[in-house]
């Protein structure tokens, strides 16, 4: 337990010392929020069903952070620690393998939560955002979304040979998904054909779930999202247990 805490704290420091990862998790989404907030404000529009740009951007950008930490942050860190032999060195100590991996997941989760918290605070104090959901409910949706994406991150980390490949694969998966799923900018602005493509992207279901819960929709309306994310989580865990390599 003591070593898990130490290791988590250490990994958190390492995360914050890595400028690129920290920027895209904590600063970039906030910058986007201020950018589009200052262009469009947060007045309700019919395009967004009576909500404002900032109202729908907060859950969408949260989805963006989840995908970034899951597909890039976690994957690259694990792949590079394996490639450099950091994981191998840790395996020679009595610390449990589960604790080594848990520390990574906890840190990614904390950083993702911080990213979301900054968005929510900015939304609340700068743009008087409308929040009509239930805080616990959105927290649950957030946890499910995070874990399901981290599970995918673990599969990727198990499959890629090097940190370099992890980075390329992560980018190839992440960037199109950010544009097409409604996480990077509102799906309402996308043409019909692209909306069809988006039904094949896992991130779409994170956006749907978080946007829905944010405006107070019920879980029953989002059973499809929950089923898809739940499946990702279970498959991800089972696959990584089989595939994960320490060296």
């Amino acid at each position: 337990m003591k070593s898990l805490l130490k290791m988590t704290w250490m990994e958190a420091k390492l995360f914050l010392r890595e400028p690129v990862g920290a920027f895209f998790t904590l600063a970039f989404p906030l910058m986007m929020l201020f950018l589009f907030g200052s262009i469009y404000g947060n007045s309700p529009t019919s395009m967004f069903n009576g909500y404002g740009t900032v109202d729908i951007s907060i859950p969408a950008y949260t989805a963006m952070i989840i995908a970034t930490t899951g597909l890039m942050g976690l994957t690259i860190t694990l792949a590079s620690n394996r490639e450099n032999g950091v994981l191998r060195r840790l395996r020679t100590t009595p610390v449990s393998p589960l604790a080594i991996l848990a520390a990574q997941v906890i840190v990614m989760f904390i950083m993702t939560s911080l990213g979301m918290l900054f968005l929510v605070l900015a939304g609340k104090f700068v743009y008087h955002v409308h929040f009509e959901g239930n805080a616990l409910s959105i927290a649950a949706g957030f946890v499910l979304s995070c874990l399901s994406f981290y599970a995918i991150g673990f599969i990727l980390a198990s499959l890629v040979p090097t940190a370099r490949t992890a980075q390329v694969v992560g980018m190839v998966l992440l960037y199109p998904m950010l544009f097409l799923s409604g996480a990077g900018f509102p799906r309402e602005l996308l043409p019909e054909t692209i909306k069809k493509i988006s039904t094949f992207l896992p991130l779409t279901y994170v956006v749907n779930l978080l946007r829905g819960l944010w405006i107070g929709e019920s879980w029953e309306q989002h059973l499809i999202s929950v089923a898809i994310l739940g499946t990702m989580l279970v498959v991800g865990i089972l696959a990584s247990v089989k595939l994960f390599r320490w060296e």
Partner: protein
Amino acid sequence: MKSIIQVNHLRKVYGKTVAVDDISFEVQEGEIFGMVGPNGAGKTTTIECLEGLRQPDGGSLCVLGVDPQKDDTILRSNTGIQLQQSNLPDRMKVWEALDLYSSFYTHAVNWEGLLSQLGLEDKRNTPFAKLSGGQKQRLFIALAILPDPKLVFLDELTTGLDPQARHAIWDLVKDVRSKGKTILMTTHFMEEAERLCDRVAIIDHGRLVALDEPAALIRKLGGKERVAFNLESSMPADFEKALARLGLVEIEGERVIVSGNDHHQAELVGEVVRLLTTTNTRFRDLRTEEPNLEDVFLKMTGRAMRE
């Protein structure tokens, strides 16, 4: 004394490469046991099988009373390990690494002390990536000793270290042994093996070719003592013949080397000097060369470089 490591007919194969081919030895509690051998001889493979990091293809191993493949909890908490190749995250600072690794063990020694013993005090806030090769090596030695384990594995103890650091680390290793710990190490420095190890195993092509105390190895296998000197004047008549009665004579220009027969070194030097003075031959730079572990090593493993 009881044995703390038993290796019986260990074998490890990578594809067509036989890395370790039927090696057997035991390490006694409280000794510094060294493995030497040319590049690719199978030292790292052997040591990493003992550490439970590689799976043997044949033979049986027992470390601290357990099979390293089966029971890794006993092994992990009672051994300290320095791998030949290792890394820490680039941005992890020296003190953070020591502090983190301390938290993994129940009886970790005070790492502040190790920091100064290894001359890393000035570097305590330096990120791993900014350390020099030798400083990284010292940090890894610190991490291996830190747990205060019963058994320490050190693969290539002082590779990349300057002479000062090397001597400091020899003292450190002797300190660890004097606390009753056992050390299994590999090295490419024969002087290091000779000074530090209680017993040395010479490994070549995955086989054990010799195993004994360094002094015994030298006595048995080191060959002859030598006396070498430079002639200042031309050789008197019959001088060479007289020298040849003392031993094998090699002459390269003005340099003369005599390798003794069965003489003791003192005798050989005495005889050579007496001959030089009675024949009134002027000479300089007279040196005696004792056989050392390097001679044994080259004799047992040959002079050909390995792939």
